[in-house]
């Protein structure tokens, strides 16, 4: 089953076409890698899919539903979660409060519900435990180390129970032990049925973790396939190395 499909997505900033007719299809249940040189449009692509940027042209379909130009919170409710390139948590909220921000649906009940709803708090603790940061639940997020913040960000995204998770450079700025930890987590979460799309520059991580790799250059995919095939593709080598 198709998880995410984009048709001819295009977005220009001034005269620069950051994303240029990108047509991409992700299958359910896979870990997809999205790689490409700096400025090839990966993050802009993420931002369009999650509704943070409106495309000039093209469509985004999630499970065959058109979600183009929907506000980000609707896209989140549809089941797409994301992390940010520079890890973003709510610095002056506690770890537990960070977890309880996620909203899964709109409505008056959600609005009036108590913050310390027991079921929700239990769910939050479950995810914090899986990240190994449950002992920090009362700390303010700004007091966490960068690596801990990365884990918190991922945990908070998972609170919304997304079926598709977009990770923007999960290995950026963290130590090797934590990279292994995040890789293991992504594999486990994938085994539980979640689909991933991962933008990453750490090639070892991408090639070791992903089932399918899409290569972007100048705002559109130029190659895709299993890691072993993509690695040898002459177009990819050219885009990366300029040979």
């Amino acid at each position, binding site marked *: 089953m198709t998880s995410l499909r984009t048709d001819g997505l295009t977005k220009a900033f001034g005269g620069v076409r950051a994303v240029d007719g990108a047509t991409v299809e992700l299958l359910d249940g896979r870990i997809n890698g999205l790689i490409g040189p700096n400025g090839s449009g990966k993050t802009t692509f993420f931002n369009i899919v999650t509704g943070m940027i409106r495309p000039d042209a093209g469509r985004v379909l999630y499970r065959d539903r058109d979600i183009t130009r929907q506000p980000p919170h609707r896209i989140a409710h549809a089941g797409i979660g994301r992390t940010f390139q520079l890890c973003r948590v709510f610095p002056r909220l506690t770890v537990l409060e960070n977890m*309880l921000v996620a909203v899964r649906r709109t409505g008056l009940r959600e609005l009036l519900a108590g*913050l310390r709803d027991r079921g929700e708090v239990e769910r939050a603790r479950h995810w914090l435990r899986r990240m*190994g940061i449950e002992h920090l639940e009362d700390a303010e997020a700004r007091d966490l180390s960068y690596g801990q913040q990365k884990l918190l960000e991922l945990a908070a995204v998972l609170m919304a129970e997304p079926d598709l998770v977009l990770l923007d450079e999960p290995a950026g700025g963290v*130590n090797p032990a*934590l990279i292994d930890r995040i890789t293991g987590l992504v594999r486990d979460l994938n085994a539980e049925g979640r689909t991933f799309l991962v933008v990453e520059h750490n090639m070892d991580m991408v090639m070791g973790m992903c089932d399918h790799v899409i290569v972007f250059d100048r705002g559109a995919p130029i190659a895709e396939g299993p890691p072993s095939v993509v690695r040898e593709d002459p177009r990819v080598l050219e885009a990366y190395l300029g040979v």
Partner: protein
Amino acid sequence: MRIASRAFPLLIAALALGYPWLVPNYYLVYAGALTVMYAAMATSWNLLGGFTGYVSLGHSAFFGLGAYGTGLLVTRLDVPWAVALPVSAALVTALAAGVGVAAVRVRGASFVIVSIALVSMTNLVAQGWRSLTGGSSGLQVPSPFPGLHRGQTHMAFFYLFLALLALALLTWWYVSRSRFGAGLLAIREDEDKAESLGVPTAAYKVTAFALSALFVALAGGLYALWFGSLDPIFVFSILIGSNMVLMSLLGGVRHLYGPLLGALIVAPAGEYFLIALGETQIHLTATGLVLILVVLFMPDGILARFTRRRAGPSIPDRSAGERLHEVTP
């Protein structure tokens, strides 16, 4: 500690209830009523400012609209005051929701400017629309308690404002314990991030904006009934809004009682300056000076000094990566 923190609000409440009988003259009852009115408005302002970080200097508009709405319903349509007050507040809240849809689209300094524009516009309309509002010659509103003398009227309104304050505090407390409140805080911290976690930020902000207008409009309506005379230049004055901001910042926007504490300091100080310095504009300079000092030296307010959250040293200073060896075999 627990008992103390439970007993404290009760003690304050008892003091507040007894205040009109404890003070020697009716002037102090009047000053008390004014202070409680400001405390209610600042607490209401903080429903928006404290939670979302959107600083509105324009809440005078809701004060003035609430005042004129109540005054006009009573004088022009002969509506009983007890009906006019909530009806006017409901209308202002609905209007605030409409205005909010446009206003909260801009952030930071732009929002402040938009909120100031709101006061200027309502002021101009109230002054210009003479046939309805009486313009700058004012609107006279009959007293709801014609049987009471001046001092007793101050007393009655002291308790009405106190009830309003209790309502505003209760609302703030409820919001602070709700998922809605967590969403608003998330908006203050990082709006786009909140949106990506499924928080309908626009709807949340508009709701907070309207809710914070509600109690200010009620205060305005009570003010109209209390003073019995409305002048657009005063009730649509940006000073009323900036007072709410000053009180909230001084006391601490992150605390339930922050704006109340700020009002207890700023409102009596304002009255004192007015008496000591006379009906000049010098007391405004004093207010401005205090605002500058607060922003410079106590950006988180007085209460933040005493109720630091547990943080920093209590957290193990290790990265999650290092901790891995402990949690995973």
